[in-house]
């Protein structure tokens, strides 16, 4: 079919309109974060105003949001390190095991993904309270690993499946042990996939809210928890919480730029080959 400009241009405009509507809340929030309250609360809404960085500075420095950033970073990075290293091994094992047994295990892992996080939050809360682990990093990290692990295994497995089996078999014939085949052949080949998986599980941990809300305290609050507390309080903090929200979003935008090619695969659990 020859694409004719008669159909292409309206189609393009329609999709642009859709994108514009979709992005309005983001643009509006970014604008709000640079406004003084006078401009932010103007009715009808103002589009032209003198921007100020004052509120970005206030919220991150004076209101010490940087501490929550550190909490978020510690928790997410620990989660990813543990989850991805053990998940990669499991994924390799499952990918090499192309039998009915592995299908059973895979199905079990997928069904773990479906269960409600709130059902995990309750026992974790009770146990952590009992062990005195509320408001510490380990409790939250363990909980995040629990929800991260099924995802990591599925995604890594899809990368291992892309590797032709002959590669491993050749190494085995040459006398490599199972562990050597994994470390010398499997890992190097999937290295790009490993990065993709690590970044996606980082995103998952960074964005998580429910478990963080339940398991953290004043010292370990992550960014989403701090922001939810702050932003829901009073509309008077509007410009401040907008500045915080925009700041929290920045690393994610960077992530998206970096991961462009892998988005479909990463988010669809490796079900779509990107």
């Amino acid at each position: 079919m020859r694409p004719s400009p008669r159909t292409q241009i309206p189609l393009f405009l329609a999709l642009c309109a859709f994108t514009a509507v979709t992005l309005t809340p983001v643009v509006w929030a970014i604008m709000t974060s640079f406004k003084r309250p006078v401009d932010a609360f103007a009715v009808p809404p103002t589009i032209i105003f003198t921007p100020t960085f004052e509120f970005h500075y206030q919220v991150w420095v004076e209101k010490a949001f940087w501490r929550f950033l550190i909490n978020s970073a510690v928790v997410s990075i620990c989660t990813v390190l543990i989850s991805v290293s053990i998940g990669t091994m499991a994924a390799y094992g499952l990918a090499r095991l192309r039998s009915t047994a592995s299908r059973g295990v895979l199905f079990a892992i997928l069904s773990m993904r479906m269960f409600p996080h709130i059902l995990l939050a309750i026992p974790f809360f009770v146990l952590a309270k009992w062990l005195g682990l509320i408001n510490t990093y380990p409790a939250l990290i363990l909980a995040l690993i629990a929800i991260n692990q099924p995802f990591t295994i599925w995604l890594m497995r899809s990368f291992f499946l892309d590797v032709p089996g002959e590669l491993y078999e050749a190494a085995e014939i040459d006398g490599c042990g199972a562990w050597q085949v994994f470390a010398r052949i499997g890992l190097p080949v999937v290295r790009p996939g490993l990065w993709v998986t690590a970044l996606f599980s980082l995103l998952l941990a960074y964005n998580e809210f429910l478990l963080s809300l339940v398991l953290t305290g004043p010292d370990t609050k992550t960014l989403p928890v701090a922001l939810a507390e702050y932003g829901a309080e009073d509309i008077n903090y509007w410009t401040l919480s907008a500045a915080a929200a925009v700041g929290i979003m920045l690393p994610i935008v960077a992530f998206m730029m970096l991961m462009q090619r892998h988005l479909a695969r990463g988010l669809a659990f490796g079900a779509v080959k990107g």
Partner: protein
Amino acid sequence: MFLIPSATVLGAVLIFPLGYAVYLSLFNYDLGAGIYQFIGLDNYAALLGESRFWGSLQRTVMIVVSAVTLEFTLGLLVAYGLYRLTFGVRTLNLLMFMPNVITPVVAALFLRWIFIGRWGLLSGILIGLGIFPPDFLGEPSWARFTVILADAWQFTPFMILVLYAGLNTVDQSQIEAAHVDGAGPWTLLFRIMIPGIRPLILFVLAIRIMDSFRFFDQIYVLTAGGPGSATETITMYTYALAFRLLQIGKASALGVMTLLLVAGAITGVIATLYRRERGAF
């Protein structure tokens, strides 16, 4: 052998807590009052006889069905639009994808600032047009509508992305054959494209249903279940039971029931779609 570390960890942080939750659901465990006694299945019985439970279930199903239908319809249309577009696809795709990766709490706040009464952008625009805006977050039926829109805002991009990736895998020779037979864009979509990516459709629908069932972050920030109980879903109700009223036992029972419901819903969806498929081919 490679599975052992992962299996151990999953057992410790996932299976064990899950079992513990089932165990807790058999107790009258009130963290506030310090009560802890075995009551068998009484928590389940109490929930089943309670209108707050049925109300929250009804609202959850309503929100899940509306949101997922909206996301799928819109997602498929936009994905197909992108598929037919010959220029600028990458940029558009990336831009419209943004809401999906934003932290849900941040996303909810962004939307709150659009919908909030008086100062919200939407109210502002409506006032500018001389229309008196409804209270999008404060009026029960509007609040439900807003919550559905919020889910759709964040997850339609996911549908678009996955369906678009799927459409590109449809066999080119089939498409050309359809063209030779004189099929228009709509015939092509319904006769060739949709059947061609049916397994993928099944997959995204299942994923979205599971996820929107436990949809929590945005409701928590947007309406906190209110006004009254207008947007109190099962997850919100469980949260309130466990962490506001500290009735751990009853909340666990509700959590277990949610798990069974989601499992049932997914099996149902997959079974129906498969059955239809068998008839069609």
